[in-house]
């Protein structure tokens, strides 16, 4: 399936499949823009709100010019009020709308945590299924010089900890478009996490509207020796690592989690039962993070398949530094995955 392919960059995209007739390649950010445009056009209940959504930059291009097409009543640049605006989106959802709330940075979302975890996540449960809160909260994670401690965090596990929320982290343009639609039409609040470094990635994206199911991982690359489960930007690091390891005769299977919550445990255990080894690569912090949950679940369900202790590749337990020199030391990447795989192969259980 061309849709399940991941391409490292534009050159790779063109080399591998740019020439295939009938397949269109667009960027991740354009895929999000297209999904949003289609939903705004076909459904009056959908609207977009957030700080700066009608800005010329259009949230990294993902909402560009939507206010011109659909009016400032449906593409709303809001007053500066993270918690209040989240509550307003919840109220609108309760009244039958399907709001798409955009937070420029996930780092601002702790301000809206009360509305997200105490209200959006709980209303359906607390009131006997009478009301649901179909609100989609797009939040952007990222990294880069100067973003540092308060502007480049990766807080997915914070949301994934809360019953009643769903958390998705698409890595490819195809998934970005399809998962955004699924999120908007899901009957639950969904936290939709985008990594800023993914916006320029190109991939195959059909023009028509489609959905990608929430809660389904995908095998990006088949392999027999080690399973590397990754999410968001780390999928690309995992693919590069797998490619390098192949040259050394190590055959890796790469799983793109796509959805963090609910976790697709079947795909994970299916793979681990085959390979017996698991590395989890996450953009977030290691402690109490996504890797911890994935490994715990695999241990619970497929312990006897494991030939070696599973390993997490994630952030060290310190805030994000500002200096590029320190950033380089801080972020794990392809090399860390390779190192983890190699260590694992010599640390096997007898």
């Amino acid at each position, binding site marked *: 399936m061309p849709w399940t392919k991941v391409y490292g960059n534009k050159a790779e995209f063109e080399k591998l499949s740019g020439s295939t007739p009938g397949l269109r390649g667009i960027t991740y950010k354009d895929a999000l823009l297209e999904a949003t445009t289609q939903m705004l056009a076909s459904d009056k209940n959908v609207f977009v709100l957030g700080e700066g959504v009608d800005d010329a930059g259009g949230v990294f291009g993902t909402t560009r010019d939507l206010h011109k097409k659909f009016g400032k009543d449906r593409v709303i640049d809001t007053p500066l009020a993270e918690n209040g605006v989240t*509550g*307003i989106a*919840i109220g*609108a959802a*309760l009244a039958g709308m399907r709001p798409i709330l955009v937070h420029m940075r996930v780092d601002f979302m702790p301000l809206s945590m009360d509305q997200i975890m105490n209200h959006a996540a709980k209303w359906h449960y607390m009131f006997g*299924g009478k009301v*649901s809160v179909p609100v989609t909260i797009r939040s952007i994670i990222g990294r880069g010089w100067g973003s540092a401690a308060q502007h480049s965090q990766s807080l997915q596990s914070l949301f994934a900890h809360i019953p009643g929320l769903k958390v998705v982290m698409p890595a490819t343009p195809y998934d970005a478009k399809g998962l955004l639609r699924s999120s908007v039409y*899901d009957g639950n609040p969904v936290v939709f996490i985008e990594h800023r470094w993914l916006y320029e990635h190109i991939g195959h994206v059909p023009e028509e509207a489609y959905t990608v199911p929430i*809660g389904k991982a995908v095998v990006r690359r088949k392999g027999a020796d080690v399973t590397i489960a990754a999410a968001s930007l780390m999928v690309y690091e995992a693919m590069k690592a797998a490619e390098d390891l192949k040259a050394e005769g190590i055959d890796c299977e790469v799983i793109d989690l796509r959805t963090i919550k609910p976790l697709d445990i*079947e795909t994970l255990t299916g793979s681990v039962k085959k390979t017996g080894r698991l590395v989890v690569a996450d953009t977030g912090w290691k402690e109490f993070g996504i890797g911890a949950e994935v490994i715990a679940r695999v241990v619970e369900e497929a312990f006897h398949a494991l030939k070696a202790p599973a390993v997490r590749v994630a952030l060290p337990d310190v805030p994000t530094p500002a200096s590029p020199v320190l950033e380089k030391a801080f972020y794990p990447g392809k090399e860390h995955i390779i190192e983890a795989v190699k260590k694992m192969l010599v640390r096997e259980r007898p």
Partner: protein
Amino acid sequence: MSIARLAAAFNCFLTHNILADRLRYMPIQTIEKFEVKFLQIINEKGEADGSLVSSFTDSDLKKFFETMILARTFNQRALSLQREGRIGTYASILGQEASQIGSALAFGGEDWLFPSFRESGVLIARGYPMWMLYRYWAGDERGMKAPPGVNIFPMSVPVGTHVPHATGAAWAMKLKGHKKAAGVYFGDGGSSKGDFHEGLNFAGVFKVPAVFLCQNNQWAISVPRKRQTAAGTIAQKAYAYGFEGVQVDGNDITAVYRATKDAVDKAKRGEGPTLIECFTYRLDDHTTSDDASRYRSKEEVEEWKGKEPLIRLRLYMEKKGVWTKDYEDAIAKKALESVDAEIKKAEGFTPPDPADIIRYTYAEPTPRQKRELKEFGWEK
């Protein structure tokens, strides 16, 4: 920004500066002015403003009176059920019946209300089944599953967090082009929350059809109204958000009704939100787990007892020849009978199904939850 305003600002800081001497001679203009109105139609002695009270028919007055008696009966029985251990912690509405019922009755059936935890009277006035309220206070979430046609959202126990929800719902009504309004109830304590500011600010900017009903009962648990804000009234805060605020005598049900009805009509005409401060008093403890005598004087409570809402309505109706002792006795008896029947119904209701824990977390159970239903033996 006007030069004069800048000048005024400079003046404060530069009094010893030569420049300041010059600026002092520049005219200082008033650029905005506000006044906060207070509405009362029937006073504590049952004396009414003839022109304002004339819009209420005898049957309106009876409806007010009877609903307040019903709510008070519900409330008294809830307090005794709590003492008997038959329901959990309960927040009494005693003294606030007019603020709650007068406002609730001013909304149309198509409007949506967002109550806080102290709004049993609002729910009862909207026709919410009392047996469900008793279930709720006995710790059963199903008690907040409003029946179809009763446009009321579940009570918010977190203080003030539902204010933006009402703004959002009102915004949705506006986007959908519906002629509806959203009303939200919160306390004087709730008005200090960031949610209050954010919700009202957005409502003002986007001119949404919302009515913000502050139930100023003078206390937020043990915090008196004066320590909640230095502002003279809560109503005046609306002007900072660019819309009208009014204070009403919250113990005068006719005033509460009039102010709310005007605000609802205004919202539906597309003229934006209103903040109504109902000036009332919490005659009971904060909840059944509180002892208010530790932080407020008996004298204060006694004084407010004389102003409570049933007394003046009774006096006024008597003067009009609408109230008699026999009439009230009959109403009270009927209220007690129906409350007792509701309690019986509440206590006879089936206990919740453990599978509900899983059933209602998400719109559809996740794969893991489906498995758990089997593992826990909860699957039907």
